[in-house]
């Protein structure tokens, strides 16, 4: 086993350590903090490259290597953790560290004026560590732990501007909504553990993703006629749906744009949301357990596909009617994640992962570009107030255009290849053509809304000054961002354009790499995929054209002007801009239900449980009352009288106690009289 496999943990540990060190540093040690974070990330990147090379140069079985160790024991068993290096890990490592490194650098510029600069880098580093931990984990438990820490850091970063109540609320929402999904993952994990007795993915034949375990899991059925593997798979999918913003757990993702833009780029576009897809890719053997020769599929994969399809369409539809530049991208991200799910469900790991990788680059690019735009417009995020930025921010515009074209799937850009492959696998899916049609519509919409955004932001003249009251900083006009921000943009633009060539049907290097094969150039494959490519290209161009038709022909001048769709179909537009009112629906149902349940529970506590106790105590009090009634009116009558006479007698006796000795003596005499009389006549009787 090579050095890098043994020490793969360093990839995750370095940023963690950096985060830990930064957390105890002084607030003003800004340069050091940023340096530590960037340095650790750079080192991780180097290590990731080494790991990549290691995988690249090994063949067959050797492409998957792991290193396990014992963690703690319970009863007779030990819980073992470990890390794993396989093509999936390697490619993700490189992507995350590379994108992460660029975003770290970008953040130096973007956050330069923030007073909590140091804390930002602390959180970023922690996030990177946790994310890399997810990638290298060879144990679902370890993966889950890092997964949760990813969620935590996401929470911290979304709520980074904690003084904004909306940011704090968005952070909370993100954490809770993803946690709902995580509970499914948690249960799935417990179930898997119970069934297979291990959570190690690969453990020389004993792991839970290896043939022995999978055969058993696929054989047994459980509720609803699901096979165990599907049931567990669906539970695990809950977790990834939460993280990847799949319907119905998507509501947190648009709100998460409250965080600083680099965070949106890093976490909510490139890496964390992709972790959901990565998780599914990781447990793909489980999801697909029981599939024989690709003829049938499993329930779990169907669920993944359909949820992905719905999300893809949903995100694309809603993105059409957004005004916030980042929200458009957020819904777009959702939609693209849906594509990945479709790809994963219909075509397998390589299809989904390819889009994941290309998407990570161009979406990070788009977000960073959006961040640059926001930075240039002094914090303005509403595209209605932008416009004409092509001249003001040429570099940003150029880079952004690459990203936009890649996202739309314009031929030869990276997004084209990966999306096309998804559509292809959806097309040949044997169960239904539904996902394919949905995917096609989504692609059309994607091209449409991106055109709309581009035109709003970059075309025409600036509308920023028109609304001078809105510009908080009082600057006039937009300006280009500093080099520290634009250089990462340009670097990212390169893979956004060319990365797709690593996975074309002609030379499916990426796919073969993931499967541990060597890729061969075969032009024959092009023949099968070619018609579909034409179709999808057409779809994209129709979308672009539609966008230009609606927005480009006659440029927007007035800030307050209605959207073209809004003026044509106001009802539809509002439905879309309100994201189908899912938030409101949840607020009215789930949230309300929980709140009601909470107050019911408090009520139960007060009136039922407390009530029983109170009833019992009341019964006792009642007894006491009855007793006291009897006392007052029956016993006490006598008792009172007795008391009265005692008190009278007391006062009488106290008068007797006058200190007169003779009077005392007199009583003795009387007492003697009485005693003798009693004795005498009593004795007689």
């Amino acid at each position: 086993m090579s050095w890098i496999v043994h020490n793969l943990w360093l990839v995750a540990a370095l940023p963690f350590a950096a985060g830990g060190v930064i957390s105890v540093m002084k607030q003003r040690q800004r340069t050091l903090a940023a340096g530590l974070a960037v340095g650790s990330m750079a080192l991780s990147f180097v290590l990731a490259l080494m790991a990549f090379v290691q995988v690249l140069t090994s063949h067959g079985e050797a492409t998957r290597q792991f290193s396990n160790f014992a963690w703690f024991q319970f009863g007779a068993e030990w819980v073992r953790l470990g890390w794993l290096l396989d093509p999936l890990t390697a490619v993700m490592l490189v992507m995350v560290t590379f994108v992460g490194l660029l975003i770290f650098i970008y953040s130096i510029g973007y956050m330069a004026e923030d007073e909590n600069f140091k804390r930002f880098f602390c959180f970023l580093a922690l996030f990177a560590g946790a994310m890399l931990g997810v990638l290298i984990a060879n144990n679902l438990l370890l993966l889950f732990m890092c997964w949760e820490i990813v969620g935590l850091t996401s929470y911290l970063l979304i709520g980074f501007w904690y003084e904004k109540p909306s940011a704090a609320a968005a952070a909370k929402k993100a954490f809770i909504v993803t946690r709902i999904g995580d509970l499914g993952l948690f249960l799935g994990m417990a179930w898997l553990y119970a069934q297979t007795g291990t959570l190690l993915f690969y453990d020389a034949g004993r792991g839970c993703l290896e043939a022995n375990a999978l055969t058993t899991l696929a054989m047994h059925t459980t509720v609803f006629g699901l096979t165990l593997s599907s049931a567990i798979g669906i539970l695990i999918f809950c977790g990834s749906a939460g993280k990847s913003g799949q319907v119905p757990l998507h509501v947190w993702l648009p709100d998460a744009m409250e965080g600083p833009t680099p965070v949106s780029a890093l976490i909510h576009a490139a890496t964390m949301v992709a972790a959901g897809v990565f998780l599914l890719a990781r447990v793909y053997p489980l999801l697909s357990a029981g599939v024989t020769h690709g003829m049938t599929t499993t329930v779990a994969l169907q669920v993944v596909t359909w949820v992905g399809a719905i999300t893809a369409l949903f995100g694309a539809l809603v993105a059409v009617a957004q005004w916030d530049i980042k929200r458009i991208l957020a819904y777009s991200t959702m939609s693209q994640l849906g594509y990945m799910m479709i790809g994963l469900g219909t075509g397998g790991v390589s299809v989904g992962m390819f889009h994941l990788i290309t998407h990570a680059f161009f979406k990070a690019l788009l977000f960073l570009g959006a961040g640059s735009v926001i930075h240039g417009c002094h914090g303005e995020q509403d595209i209605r107030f932008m416009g004409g930025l092509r001249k003001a921010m040429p570099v940003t515009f150029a880079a952004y255009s690459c990203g936009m074209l890649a996202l739309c799937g314009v031929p030869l850009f990276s997004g084209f290849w990966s999306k096309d492959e998804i559509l292809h696998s959806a097309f040949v899916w044997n169960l239904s053509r539904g996902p394919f049609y949905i995917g096609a519509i989504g692609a059309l919409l994607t091209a449409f809304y991106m055109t709309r955004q581009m035109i709003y932001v970059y075309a025409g003249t600036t509308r920023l000054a028109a609304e001078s009251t809105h510009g908080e900083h009082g600057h006039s006009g937009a300006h280009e961002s500093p080099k520290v921000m634009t250089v990462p943009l340009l670097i990212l633009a390169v893979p956004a354009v060319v990365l797709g060539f690593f996975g074309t049907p002609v030379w499916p290097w990426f796919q073969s790499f993931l499967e541990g094969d060597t890729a061969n150039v075969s032009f024959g494959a092009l023949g099968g995929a070619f018609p579909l490519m034409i179709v999808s290209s057409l779809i994209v161009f129709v979308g672009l054209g539609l966008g230009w038709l609606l927005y480009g022909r006659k440029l927007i001048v007035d800030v307050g002007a209605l959207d073209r769709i809004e003026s044509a179909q106001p009802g539809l537009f509002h439905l879309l801009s309100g994201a189908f009112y899912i938030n409101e629906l949840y607020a009215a149902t789930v949230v309300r239900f929980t709140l009601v349940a909470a107050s019911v529970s408090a009520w139960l506590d007060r009136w039922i449980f407390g009530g029983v106790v109170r009833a019992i105590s009341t019964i006792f009090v009642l007894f006491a009352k009855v007793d006291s009634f009897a006392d007052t009116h029956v016993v006490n009558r006598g008792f009172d009288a007795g008391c009265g006479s005692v008190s009278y007698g007391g006062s009488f006796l106290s008068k007797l106690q006058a200190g007169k000795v003779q009077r005392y003596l007199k009583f003795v005499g009387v007492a003697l009289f009485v005693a003798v009389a009693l004795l005498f006549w009593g004795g007689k009787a």
Partner: protein
Amino acid sequence: MNAFPWLSLLTALPVVGAGVVLVAGARSDRAARFLSVGFAVGALCIALLLWHGFDVNVGGMQLVEQHAWVPALHIQYHLGIDGLGLSMLLLSAIVTLISLGASWKIEDRVPLYFALILLVEACLFGAFTALNFIHWFTFWELCLIPAFFLIKIWGGPRRTPAATQFLVYTMAGSVAMLLSFLAMYLAANTFEFEELATIAQSGRLLPSLAASSSWMHLTPEHLGLVIFAGVFLGFAVKVPVIPFHTWLPDTYAEAPTGTTILLTGAMSKMGLYGFLRILVPIFAPQMQSVLTPLLWMAVATVVLGSLSAMAQTDLKRIFAYSSINHLGYCLLGIFAAVRYAGSDAQLLTQRAAALSGTMLQMFNHGITAATIFWFVAILETRSGGARELSDFGGLRRNAPVLAGMMGIALFSSLGLPGLNGFISEFLIFKGAFPLATWATALCTIGLLITAVFILNVIQRVFSGPLQERHSNFLDLSGKEQMLLAPAIALMFLLGLDPQILLSHLNATVLQLTNTIKF
């Protein structure tokens, strides 16, 4: 048999401490504070020494001290610890220190207060080491007295009803338990836990119960259930299990925060300790026969506890309910462990996971809850006694370190991986899921709601705009950071390397899993 009496020494030390604090502290409050901390540190040192000398491969009792006490009634002075007892001793010692730390600002009758805290500690030590019912019961009850006075004298505005409710409620449970044990004594002629367990596991307890106390012509099985119900009630009130919990929120809210720390950190563990030490070895068949209601109770404790916490606005009440919720997971683990009879390897593994998780959770919850209440105490003193959520907001601006450290404690309570709460909850769920699937699945709701209300606390206290009146709110001083750091470090330590604790618990767990027979 009777080696050096470490355990007696450990129990006696705080008692001596209480005396010294009362006498020496009469002159200066400062002396009282430092002396009490000194004695608590001494106790912790002894506990750590025990920890160090503990033989991790032995499942049974160690450091046993056994002397006849009242031979006619078979009452013995019988002490000993296994892994569970040891971890509880350590927990009590730590929690006492935290409690003392959080009580530092008490100004009224200082020596008495600190002496009472030390007395509680002594009672805890006594209860966690005793192996004879009467001996144990003495400490169990004795514990209530200093706690009662702590609440009654230093509590909040509604302290008197709270203290009375606390005392009467727990006493009622104890009385039921005492009666049950008397019945068992009549049957088995012993008060020894281990002997009773042996007798019960060999199936001789029920026939002799029926022979000795044939009450209302019940069958032996029913009689066994009645006896079990009595003992169960005693522990259920202490833990508390919903619906026997109504004393808890009032008590925790009204008690001075230092006392709340002791109550939730250590005293609530006495109930769970009883479940593991007494109910599981002796009454496993009875538990199994009423397992469905028991599981419902566990689910209710988890879910309703967290939901009620969500509905509260007072910080102390929130965390009071949160305690109920967290201990509910322990109940789930315990009940799931006794669900199925048998001893095949699979079952034993699940059981071991559930019980390991339970014991770990007891320790972890003690540390975490105590630390959280410490932070509540800090918030309380700095804001002049405010505890309502609406009293705070935006404190992170002025007190970033406080926000960070308290955040860590809160996330530990939430069950964030990397911190201590996660491993125990995972083990419990891991073990309980195959044994009691639906109950475990329902309990995950509790995990979610816990996240909701804890994040809510963070949001309401630390985020948002800073309230005007807190503009002078001070961050933690260096000294406070130094004091709190060990607790936080412990959370990380146990979260990252739970084997530290589990290695000591494991032999005990193994033994316990094997005692569940029917």
